[in-house]
């Protein structure tokens, strides 16, 4: 039984981060940037692997640099933003793979990056996830009005003299940090589903950003537990089961809404 305690703690902490960051990513149209960062973060994991340093801190630093680079490119380049996101996405992954190749050692640990390692997540990662949750919840509560106004009409916010660029950079860093810490629990593939599906459903059903974050957290937890139950019952991959439950719910709600 005690073996299950830490994975459950990890699921609850991950659900809070995914619910808050996912709602912010959906409402600020940052889901594709989040997906791009999740893949670019693989470069940080590879670099840590090559240097033999602690993966958590190297990946955080690498992903924050990738996030700021993405913002800088999107703001200054005439290229379409989705193209630039795709470039950073692919380059980050390629860099990670090259680092692993150069290290000439066994890359078994990297599977945890792609698929998560719920049963073997280090306590330091859980502590970092807990700190992130507290920071995300507090800042989202304090700046809830500004976050909503910026999402609804960013041009008005700029004209009103609001520091839009600073806020957007902060938002992107919050999404980047969430991506890195969630990736250790959920894996890269499940992370993209958690950043998009619960938040997308929650913003439809609620009238305030804070309520949307609470509903998205509950949905992430429910999808996670239901997927794990399905996985245990049918002896299937847990990540794929969780994504299937979340995706099926999203499609059912979307189709029901159109009728």
């Amino acid at each position, binding site marked *: 039984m005690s073996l299950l305690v830490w994975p459950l703690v990890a699921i609850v902490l991950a659900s809070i981060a995914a619910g808050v960051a996912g709602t912010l990513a959906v409402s600020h149209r940052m889901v594709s940037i989040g997906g791009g960062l999740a893949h670019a973060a693989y470069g940080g994991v590879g670099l840590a692997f090559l240097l033999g340093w602690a993966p958590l801190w190297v990946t955080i630093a690498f992903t924050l640099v990738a996030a700021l680079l993405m913002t800088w490119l999107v703001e200054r380049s*005439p290229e379409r933003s989705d193209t630039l996101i795709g470039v950073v996405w692919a380059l980050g992954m390629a860099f990670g793979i090259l680092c692993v190749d150069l290290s000439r050692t066994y890359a078994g640990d990297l599977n945890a990056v792609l698929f998560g390692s719920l049963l073997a997540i280090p306590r330091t990662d859980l502590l970092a996830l807990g700190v992130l949750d507290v920071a995300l919840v507090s800042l989202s509560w304090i700046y809830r009005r500004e976050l909503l106004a910026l999402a609804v009409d960013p041009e008005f916010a700029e004209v009103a003299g609001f520091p839009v660029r600073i806020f957007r950079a902060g938002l992107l860093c919050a999404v980047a940090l969430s991506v890195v810490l969630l990736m250790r629990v959920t894996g890269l593939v499940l992370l993209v589903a958690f950043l998009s599906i619960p938040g997308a459903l929650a913003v439809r059903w609620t009238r305030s950003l804070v309520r949307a974050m609470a509903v998205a957290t509950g949905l992430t937890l429910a999808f996670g537990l239901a997927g794990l139950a399905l996985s245990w019952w049918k002896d299937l991959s847990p990540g794929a089961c969780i994504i299937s439950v979340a995706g099926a719910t999203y499609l059912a709600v979307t189709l029901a809404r159109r009728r």
Partner: protein
Amino acid sequence: MTPAFRLQEVSCGYAGHVVLRQASLEIAPGGILGMIGPNGAGKSTVLRLLLGLLDPLEGTVEVLGRPPRQARSGIGYVPQSLVLERDLPGTLEDLVLAGFLGLRRPGSPPTAAELERAHGWMERLGVVQLRARKLSELSGGQLQLGLVARALVREPRLLLLDEPTANADARAQGAVFALLDEFCRERTAVVVSHDVGVLARNVRSIACVGAGTIVHHGTREVPQDALEAAYGCPVELIAHGHPHRVLSEHGPDCHHDHASCGGHA
């Protein structure tokens, strides 16, 4: 007296395409200025210049005696409702309270006086009973009135409105212009619209934007030839309930792209 705004020999455009060429316009404070012209002529570009969202290639822009970005606390802006992200968890009251952005410290809640002011403007625009309604549940006209309220809570010295009554019915149009008329006794508003009929009844003067220039007519009456020069094709006045100008029939020698001017003048 410091003008509400001044464009001096301004040229501007986007990605190699010049919209205005050495255009000048100076508006004294007080009253409503109507701005007309076909699609793509540069009406919204003039608003973007005044808001500091676009820098001129040549010439100078002054708003309330200062460069536009420094004058933002004195400017109110009503965009077209189409620019909004409506499918988000926010209410009409949230939208109107966003009008205080930039005027108070980020993170601080609205004061009782700010709430009262927001509710006051919503009431005068007839949407206060909709304040708890989600943005996605509002009609285009109701949302547009919310945007007007959001701009008015700032009590700006210069109010810029881009098609503020495009989705509103006649009653809401009347309410908006009555409010603007009262608001602009000591302040200035610029209303961009395609509807010359509505503007002619409600504004102090009209500026025609077209063919890279701006021509300011000191009154609300625009000569027929000036209107046709701005739109690049014949325009005539018809009446169906209220006076209304439309593009009239004209021969095959006219090469003007009418899809771009929206049909109505």
